[in-house]
């Protein structure tokens, strides 16, 4: 190695941050189990357990209906969870579990991690299965009140809208269109078409 390369190599060593090896500690299996609560559409992460529509109805009335309504219709500005079928192409789409959500696993995962609002991670696995089953019933995915959802049958009843999602395609559908910037005499005239004033929706 020439002196120059030696110097270069030494300089690299001096200016590249030394990786901090050996920091942190190994997580114990109990610690990982306590925090690793997520599940996926293929069912990975689901714990053993089960719950029926009827069981879910009781829990829902007690713990969920105050915000989401008895039938998942939503109270005030809280989100509706059911209904809205065939509204996605309408003027006012109603995006619910039944009309919009692509995966049932999202329902289970979200209830389990974040609900009931203000008392998260308080439900048992069986209660989360039961609530998910009840939401399937409210969204007409099952019609039997005795239907029992479990780890074993979880992936057998998919939601309806999955096939209508596709990955971001702006790089082909939008970016090629947005490259022109006219500077002079870009249009003949300009009219104001809409005003925010008078709508009375802006806070003080």
């Amino acid at each position, binding site marked *: 190695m020439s002196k120059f390369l030696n110097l270069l190599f030494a300089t690299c060593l001096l200016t590249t941050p030394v990786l901090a090896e050996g920091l942190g500690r190994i*997580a114990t299996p109990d610690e990982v189990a306590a925090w690793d609560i997520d599940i996926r559409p293929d069912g990975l992460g689901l714990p053993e357990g089960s719950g029926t529509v009827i069981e879910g109805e009781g829990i829902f009335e007690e713990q969920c209906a105050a915000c989401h309504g008895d039938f998942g219709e939503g109270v005030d500005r809280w989100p509706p969870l059911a209904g809205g079928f065939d509204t996605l192409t309408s003027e006012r789409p109603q995006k619910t579990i039944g009309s919009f959500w692509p995966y049932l696993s999202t329902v289970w995962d979200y209830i389990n991690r*974040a609900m009931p609002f203000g008392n998260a991670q308080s439900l048992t696995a069986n209660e989360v299965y039961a609530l998910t089953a009840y939401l399937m019933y409210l969204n007409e995915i099952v019609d039997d009140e005795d239907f029992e959802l479990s780890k074993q049958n979880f992936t057998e009843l998919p939601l309806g809208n999955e096939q209508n999602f596709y990955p971001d395609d702006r790089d082909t559908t939008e970016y090629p269109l947005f490259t022109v*910037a006219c500077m002079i005499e870009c249009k003949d005239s300009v009219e104001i*078409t809409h005003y925010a004033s008078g709508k009375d929706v802006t806070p003080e």
Partner: protein
Amino acid sequence: MTNKSGPSRRQFLTTSLAAGGGMAATIAQAGDPAITEVQPWAQHLGEGVDQAGYGMPSPHEAHVLRKSVPWLTAEETSSINFTPLHQLDGIITPNGLAFERHHSGVAEIDPAEYRLMINGLVDRPMVFTMEDLMRFPRHNKVYFLECTANSGMEWRGPQLNGVQFTHGMLHNVMYTGVMLKDILAEAGVKTEGKWLLAEGADAAGLSRSIPMEKALDDCMIAFKMNGEALRPEQGYPARLVLPGWEGNMWIKWIRRLEVGDQPWHHREETARYTDLLASGDSRRFTWMMDAKSVITTPSPQAPILHGKGPTVITGIAWSGQGIIPRVDVTLDGGINWHKARVDGPSLDKSLHRFYFEFDWDGKPLLLQSRAHDTTGYVQPTKDALRKIRGVVSNYHNNGIQTWAVNSDGEVDNVEIS
């Protein structure tokens, strides 16, 4: 002034002199009491040091506040407020004015109890304390964070009359933190590990799937903003930083990173933060924040109060794809455009500050700004976006904003033909 339709430098100076002369004439007899009378601050002792261990802005700035739009959300713990963009200048957002978005309120975490776990498809599941994080090599980067729903209320037409509310789900601070790739290297990502689940410690357990390519590129775990500890509402003691990507993914109070071979399709990347199109189909994983700009003054909350004459238009521009080499401004609703002057640091995936100085003749104006980014992308009109997406997307509205200024200098949020 080099702009074809702008005033010449001579005109600008002449007008300035004339305006100054006029002012002098009106107060010639008595003189300006701000000068002729001894002011209390010039006579008496002021407060000494240590009146406030943590200093606050002048009482005269007490009106400069984050504000929310109460009708937007059911209640405050799952809500958002807005940065007062019309009252700020430069590129840095002060920490106390950076907008807040919480899904289950602010997690108040004792840093001594803070833990970051890495598990999943790794050689060694790991736990790190704050002390551990501080021992990785640190980096300083200025990045914008924009909520995906910024300007989302404007899809059906102008709604909110203030740039704070139309564009204020946005802040730009300098983060100090460590590279995500350095932390992941400690655990050893297995070759089949293509995705990362990032999860917060708050009562929403907010979780997002991140492609490993991004995680190993420029992402950080940050613990400082603008030199001081993260504010609790911004994720104290540590948050994820995903430069250029939608704000929802910048998990606050970050507690866990799980490596997997597929995305998780959690609530914030399916039911929310997906883009419903007029066709009924939806785009998902729309992570990139496209180039955008807005004039911050004048704007509805910051009218022109000085009348005609020398006038400063200023605004901000940003892009998730890089820097902003150019911003154009129009005074006439887009018939003719002028290149604005970008002033201050031009940093990758950071806000840029632009100015356009002109001699206002007191006639109505239709103001717009248009950002260009390093990829050649030019900020589109709202109608161009609607033509492709419809009006129910909620998210990613980076269309050109129009402010109508009337002859009194009052400003309205409008749309034009």
